[in-house]
């Protein structure tokens, strides 16, 4: 079973402790970006391109309007992160558009006024001379490649030539809007006397914003102070610095005036980077016994008009996971990231993993139908059974029990298929393995005068519950209560340099740094304690500090999802009857919060299956710029989700933890898609599974 935890369970770790931050949040005690009002601040509205692709002939600003264009700012384009073993182009996102716009919604100029309403009025009066150009909207038809990655391992040609069966399938996942409850925003204020630029930004951490600002503005990092206030969700979309944040900071420097940009929902829809937007052709070579001999995949990613700093990352993750949970050492995978005239894509909950799971797991089900083997049996013949396992594509899965996850999912979902005159019913499964953690994370622990311990974390929350889980970890190591531990996050001048909250990494990386810092502090306390209690020591040794920087390779969570769906024949309406999530995220610090993460991720995964699609019309205009055009699931559409955990400890960190934040969004689409295909008798339909699409598939 492999459920031994790396850390012996203390009084709090492993217990379903309720989120201690919720009392403050629910009583409105939070301070979000838009709650911050600096005296004398001007409000910012952006002039955004109404065209998907156009040349800018000139910009005319009427008298009396305070507008800033690219010509007024001394900034670089946003930096672009590379991908290991691949190439990326130099298509960094400009802060404000120069002589070209590449997507509808791209910021062209910014207007400063005494209120947001006045700024919006003024923005309408700025005249931009656009010369519209033909937009490119299909990644497969784009002739501009912005990222490329290709890896071949083993004799792929030979494997396909000698295969008893070759199975091919094409699938695509549409673009999705992240839609955090709180949209993006930034406030910037420049103190010329101190030469200090202070930037408040709704973001996933302070230090990536700091690095981005320093680079784009050409200022040393110690002359910039980044503060992340309470953040009302991000789902990946507030990880990379936004061009608008850079523009606000640069304009605050240029004008000397404090500036505030708190975007509205429409801006968030059209200008916040999106997720998914990939299609793939996958081929699997099988021997006569249904063993996978080789995987071949060609993937096209619709990256949008520019590369945001992290745009290429999800495409690399998708590629690296194209062998999934299967024992196959021969693979040929390539990804073509193409430029299109849409808002850029970037990491969105799952960030490349749902795409890989969807492309591969749907192809496995196609294979099961073509080979006449039960889809679960076909999976069981091919699962990786011994870990650690180095994949054909180069990652090493650290731990897991894939067979156990699948067994449990099958048992819990109670498979059902068939139907009657009114409806068809089907069952599907989707397995996944996902990268989590990696790089480093930091923490500092300090003994306070009253005997409590203050922990400063480089990792930063935006809904995950760090204040509770990190306190559980610290309290157990110190042998104190939750109330004796205080956490601080998100201020670049106060917390140690961290990496951030993304890639399901907070507990494995940030949590490990917290316990190492706390352990080091405990040693220092014990050295001076001479038998005295913590409070007595504190009275004399307040300010005692210890720091930790925890580094590790990637850890790999995994899981098996199962779904039973029903489709109404007369209308095509899809109902998810049962959904089972079995996840192995290693040691679970707080089962209540972990289950919450799974249910939330599942709701987003189901949203993708049922209703979500960021679609553009033939001219490249977004058709999803409000909740009329872009639908989110409500509680009414959610089936009861059964979430179970298999806990195989990761050997790579002292907690044995992996990651759980994205699991639901990764496992759900593949399972539901396979259930839909099962109900339809094998028809290949891609999400969103609208009533019309399914009605047509039913014939």
């Amino acid at each position: 079973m492999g459920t031994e935890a790396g850390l012996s369970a203390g009084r709090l770790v492993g217990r379903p402790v309720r989120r201690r931050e919720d009392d403050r949040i629910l009583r409105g005690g939070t301070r979000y970006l838009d709650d911050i009002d600096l005296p004398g601040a001007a409000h910012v509205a952006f002039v955004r391109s109404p065209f998907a692709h156009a040349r800018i002939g000139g910009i005319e600003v009427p008298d009396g309007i305070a507008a800033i264009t690219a010509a007024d700012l001394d900034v670089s384009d946003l930096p672009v992160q590379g991908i290991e073993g691949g190439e990326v182009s130099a298509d960094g996102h400009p802060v404000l558009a120069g002589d070209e716009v590449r997507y509808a919604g791209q910021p062209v100029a910014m207007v400063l006024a005494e209120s947001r309403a006045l700024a919006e009025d003024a923005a309408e009066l700025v005249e931009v001379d656009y010369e519209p150009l033909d937009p490119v909207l299909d990644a497969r038809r784009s002739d501009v490649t912005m990222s490329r990655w290709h890896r071949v391992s083993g004799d792929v040609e030979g494997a396909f030539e000698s295969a008893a069966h070759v199975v091919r399938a094409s699938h695509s996942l549409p673009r999705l809007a992240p839609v955090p409850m709180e949209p993006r925003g930034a406030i910037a204020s420049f103190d010329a006397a101190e030469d200090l630029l202070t930037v408040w930004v709704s973001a996933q951490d302070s230090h990536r914003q700091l690095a981005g600002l320093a680079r784009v503005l050409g200022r040393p990092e110690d002359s910039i102070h980044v503060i992340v206030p309470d953040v009302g969700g991000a789902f990946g979309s507030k990880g990379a610095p936004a061009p608008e944040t850079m523009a606000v900071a640069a304009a605050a420097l240029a004008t000397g005036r404090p500036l505030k940009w708190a975007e509205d929902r429409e801006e968030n829809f059209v200008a916040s980077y999106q997720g998914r937007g990939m299609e793939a052709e996958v081929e699997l070579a099988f021997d006569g016994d249904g063993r996978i001999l080789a995987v071949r995949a060609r993937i096209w990613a619709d990256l949008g008009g520019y590369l945001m700093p992290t745009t290429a990352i999800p495409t690399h993750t998708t590629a690296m996971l194209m062998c999934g949970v299967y024992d196959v050492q021969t693979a040929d995978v390539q990804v073509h990231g193409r430029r299109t005239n849409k808002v850029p894509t970037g990491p969105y909950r799952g960030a490349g993993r749902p795409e890989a799971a969807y492309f591969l797991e749907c192809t496995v089900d196609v294979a099961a139908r073509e080979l006449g083997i039960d889809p679960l049996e076909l999976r069981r013949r091919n699962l990786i059974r011994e870990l650690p396992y180095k994949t054909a594509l180069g990652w090493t899965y650290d731990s897991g029990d894939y067979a156990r996850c699948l067994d449990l999912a099958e048992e819990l979902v109670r498979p059902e298929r068939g139907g009657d005159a009114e409806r068809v019913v089907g069952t599907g499964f989707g397995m996944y393995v996902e990268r989590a953690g990696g790089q480093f994370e930091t923490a500092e622990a300090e003994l306070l005068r009253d005997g409590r311990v203050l922990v400063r974390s480089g990792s930063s929350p935006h809904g995950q519950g760090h204040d509770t889980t990190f306190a559980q970890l610290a309290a157990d190591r110190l042998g104190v209560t939750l109330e004796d531990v205080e956490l601080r996050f998100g201020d670049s001048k106060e917390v140690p340099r961290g990496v951030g909250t993304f890639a399901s990494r907070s507990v494995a990386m940030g949590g490990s740094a917290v316990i190492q810092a706390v352990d080091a502090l405990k040693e220092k306390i014990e050295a001076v304690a001479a038998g005295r209690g913590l409070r007595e020591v504190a009275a004399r040794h307040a300010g005692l500090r210890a720091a930790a920087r925890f580094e590790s390779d990637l850890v790999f969570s995994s899981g098996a999802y199962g779904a039973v769906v029903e489709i109404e024949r007369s209308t095509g309406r899809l109902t998810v009857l049962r959904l089972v999530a079995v996840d192995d995220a290693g040691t679970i610090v707080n089962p209540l919060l972990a289950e919450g993460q799974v249910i939330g991720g599942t709701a987003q995964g189901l949203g993708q299956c049922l209703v979500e699609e960021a679609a553009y019309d033939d001219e490249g205009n977004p058709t999803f710029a409000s909740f009329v055009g872009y639908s989110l699931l409500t509680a009414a559409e959610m089936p009861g989700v059964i979430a179970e955990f298999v806990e195989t400890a990761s050997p790579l960190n002292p907690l044995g933890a992996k990651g759980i934040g994205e699991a639901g969004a990764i496992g759900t689409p593949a399972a539901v898609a396979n259930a839909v295909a099962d109900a339809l008798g094998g028809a290949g339909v891609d999400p969103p599974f609208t009533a019309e699409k399914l009605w047509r598939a039913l014939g």
Partner: protein
Amino acid sequence: MKPAPFDYRAPASVEETLPLLELDTAVLAGGQSLVPLLNLRLARPEVVVDINGLAELDYLRADGGPLRIGAMTRQVTLERSEPVRRGWPLLHKAVRLVGHRQIRSRGTVGGSVAHADPAAELPAALLALDATLHMRSTGGARRVAASEFFLGPLYTAREPDELLVEIEVPGQPDGAGAGFAEYARTHGDFATAGAAAVVGPGGHAGIALFGAGPVPVRSEAADQALASGAGAREAAELAAREVEGEHRRALCTELARRAIEEAMA
């Protein structure tokens, strides 16, 4: 998402309101449709006339005769009215599907009718119930049948200087049943399509579809078929036969069938 500048008037009575109504005025009732349109700058009136102070238009009257609904009656009031639930169950069933609870607590019956969204529930229900819409202007009063009122998406027979003041719904025959069915992507979302049906003894029938075209549509053929004893399936097919788009037609047919069966049950 801040509205373009406009002048704001808040009259205290119908008499004070009527002279304010002109070509570029927008009447603000519950604001559940107008305010988003203003914020998106899709509606740019010169003057917004806020009629929330018109308490005289907030009433439900049913004294044995027709139901009279003041235009400023909140949707939630209609939803919770016991006389409406008993006497005009179709309205009760329809209003419960308008948006979410928060929307119905502000949204008004008159606002929904005057806004004339082709996917709205109340216009279709009123069409099936043969309602009459009462309007006033400085020039006098005018009444228009629901079947003549809805002219296109967000476009009605109301002139810019007219104010919708009352919706009159005839009393229903004893034993009349009501059915209402809709399909929406998610709970509380705009309906993709829907159907309203009233079926009573003595050949009384009214079937209306919404989300089926630019305006809610009443099918005389379906009404007559039901009156002469046709089954729900046959009547539903007649009701939806003009609907454009294969899937939308299939959806309307199925929803009409459900609404009719519910009304006949």
